């Protein structure tokens, strides 16, 4: 089990590292030589010296790339027996408008000692409105293994401070699915934060081999109470309702599992 988790981690990391230089070069914009925005100091200090300094000062004041690594949820879920480990990761690198996003989610059953679900996405993210980014790219499923999906999504901040991440997935097998996540931060104090969160999954048709039925396959509303030891480091406890619908619920019940359960969670939200 440990080996497989490590492998999943390595895949995420290597995808991130491989795509790093790609975006880095995509971000650096060059000023055409013919269109110097200003040049009066060239006369005093030379064209070459000023050209270099001008490029530097312009890049240093507005064209800066940043990265972020965030585990929105890194948690243990009390799903019976030894429970389940879950990760929900987002990382990005880029400028104000264009970014490379890497997202990964997955679950490891400690009871069965196996990865139940794991996926990684590599997305180009473009700011299109004050609070919204359009994201497009690929998703690869590590478990169940082998599926690749095209991804088109929208991520941002809805009115009244709801964080939204919605994406549609089209697999190489022609299956269309979608996932919508929404989060909210309700502060009791500057440190104690209640985070309601809901995730909904949809599928265009039945995919029996994955145990998925058409329509709304399931929802996972939950609340997590975080304590921000630092703004970047917040352990939490919470509870989540994992509810499946329709054929998906039937598939789950057929394999002798619970399609409707409430689980307690303990975890950590952290970013840097």
């Amino acid at each position, binding site marked *: 089990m440990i080996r497989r988790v490590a492998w999943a981690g390595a895949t995420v990391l290597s995808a991130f590292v491989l795509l790093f230089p790609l975006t880095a070069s995509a971000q650096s914009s060059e000023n055409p030589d013919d269109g110097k925005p200003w040049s009066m100091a060239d006369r005093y200090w030379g064209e070459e010296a000023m050209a270099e300094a001008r490029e530097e000062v312009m890049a240093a004041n*507005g064209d800066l790339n940043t990265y972020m690594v965030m585990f929105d949820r890194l948690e243990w879920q009390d799903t019976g027996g030894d429970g389940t480990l879950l990760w929900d990761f987002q990382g990005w690198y880029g400028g104000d408008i264009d970014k490379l996003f890497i997202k990964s989610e997955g679950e490891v059953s400690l009871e069965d000692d196996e990865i139940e679900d794991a996926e990684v996405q590599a997305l180009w993210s473009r700011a299109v409105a004050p609070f919204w980014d359009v994201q497009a790219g690929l998703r690869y499923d590590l478990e169940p293994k082998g599926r690749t999906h095209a991804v088109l999504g929208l991520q941002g901040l809805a009115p*009244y401070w709801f964080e939204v991440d919605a994406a549609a997935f089209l697999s190489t097998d022609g299956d269309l699915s979608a996932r919508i996540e929404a989060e909210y931060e309700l502060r009791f104090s500057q440190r104690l934060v209640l985070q309601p969160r809901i995730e909904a999954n949809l599928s265009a048709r039945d995919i029996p081999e994955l145990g998925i039925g058409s329509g709304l396959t399931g929802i996972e509303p939950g609340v997590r109470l975080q304590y921000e030891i630092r703004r970047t480091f917040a352990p939490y406890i919470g509870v989540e309702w994992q509810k499946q619908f329709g054929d998906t619920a039937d598939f789950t019940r057929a394999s002798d599992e619970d399609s409707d359960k409430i689980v307690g969670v303990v975890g950590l939200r952290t970013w840097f």
Partner: protein
Amino acid sequence: MTFDRRHFLQTSLGSAAALGASGLMPAWARPASMGNLGLPALTGTDFDLTVSQFPIRIDGRDTLATGVNGTVPAPLIRFREDTPIRLNVRNDLDVDTSIHWHGLLVPFHMDGVPGVSFPGIKPRSSFTYEFSTPQNGTYWYHSHSGLQEQVGHYGPLIIDPKGSDPVAYDREYVLMLGDWTFTDPHRIFDKLKKNAESLNFNQPTIGNPKGLTGMWGAMRMSPNDLADVTGETYTYVINGHSTADNFNMVFRPGERVRLRIINAAAMTLFNVRMPGLPMTVVQADGLNVRPIETDEFQIGVAETYDVIVQPTESQPFAFVAESIDRSGQVVATLGPRPGMRAAEPRLRPVPVLTMKDMGMDHSSMAGMSGMDHASMSGRTASMAGHAAMGHGPDPHGAPVQLPRVEANLERGPGVVNIAAMPMSRLDEPGIGLEDVPHRTLTYADLRSLEPNPDTRAPAREVVVHLTSNMERYMWSFDGVKFSEITAPITFMEGERVRLTLVNNTMMPHPIHLHGMFFDLVNGGGDHMPRKHTVVVKPGEKLSADISAEHVGDWAFHCHLIYHMHAGMMQVVTVQPNPLIERKDRIDAALARPDAETAP
């Protein structure tokens, strides 16, 4: 008065042994308990400055600074008006550095902005600045490279008048306000980019929900967003001293003490007051103003105010500089004996922004029909209709009809808000000071002591919008970051032009234009205050008339360092006017490019 070089070096380098654990500091920045009984009356013409990285101790903690001659703040540079001076700057850093003479009217290639006025000073190299200044007063100097200003690269600069000083005083001190951080400033900026609210520990809560709902929630703007970087990150200092370090000054009862107050912070506007002691403001941004007595004023980053205080009672008085968001403050002491410590007042309740700060205060529209609705259609250079309505956003100014240059502004990733009804706020003291139970200073109160040298009416208006997206931590002028600039703002040498600044953001921005003064259009007639830095309040629209006298490319930017770093910067180019005769050979060469090769 002759300049004593040895004395200057002693002043600037100080004596490490004498200071012990409280760190290196120049004589002017030492407390009275370490012998500083007022500024030395030094005047010089030749200054040696070395920029390096060195350890210092602030608020009892060891830290590393980047600064000048091994001290924070840097040495006091003092010289006489109209005297040619030389400043030899050596860079002992591993990165480029620079020194910009803030507010000084110097030839533009001596202005010290890398990439705009010169190439910068490379590691292990030197650069000599040479100029004389046609002005006097309290100014300052600082790095214009990277984020060096945040980590100690700043110092005071006083130009003594060539004639007699209209301000009489018995003793003087410089008070340089700062916001020290023990965190690498690049990490602070990165944090703001990742999560712009993460350094703010005054966010809306269930108990204080304004901002979550209503218009604020709908627009995803926070009424608690008073400062990007707060007391949680910063240790506020005066001359490098925290409150615990107690910068203390002395007076004899009845003396007139001149305090030269310079806000050298990277990100912090301060509320300045001396409980129990009225302050008479005599100078703003280096230029004398008609004396005006007040109890408190807000000072923007890079602004300077000189005040006279005249304590008669033999007791210590607190000098309080409180961060605009009230997340922290720093207190110094003015006492009858060295080493005294005044009682520190408690931090006052945190102010909350209003719809007015969003530029959409409908209530104050009453009786202002026909007001400027700030239509943003197209870059126009025509007779702008709404400016012609006369009683526009500036109730003090005369009606004007000017050809206008204004960018076409649209909402987008970098522009969240376009103020629907920006208005004049010159008669307000600044966020949080509206309701204090004592006198406050406003921009509307300021009058130049001398008549303005140029009283021509402006011939045209240039409008610049201050724009932002706090969520993405994007800051810009007209929605265009400095990195994306394709053309500067152009003034013609000799022209009188009106610069109108419209703040579409929720934050006050101290806007600084190099090489020229803003003649603030505040109803002062021919006694407008002349400023190098002007704070534009949230939702405010204000105008300054400018005499474009000095040919060159001049930096123009928000003086909040992370706003500038994010892109809130432009260049104003003053183009040579061939009709103006010039004695200066270099300026003449600029006007006629072929002059260099001509016999």
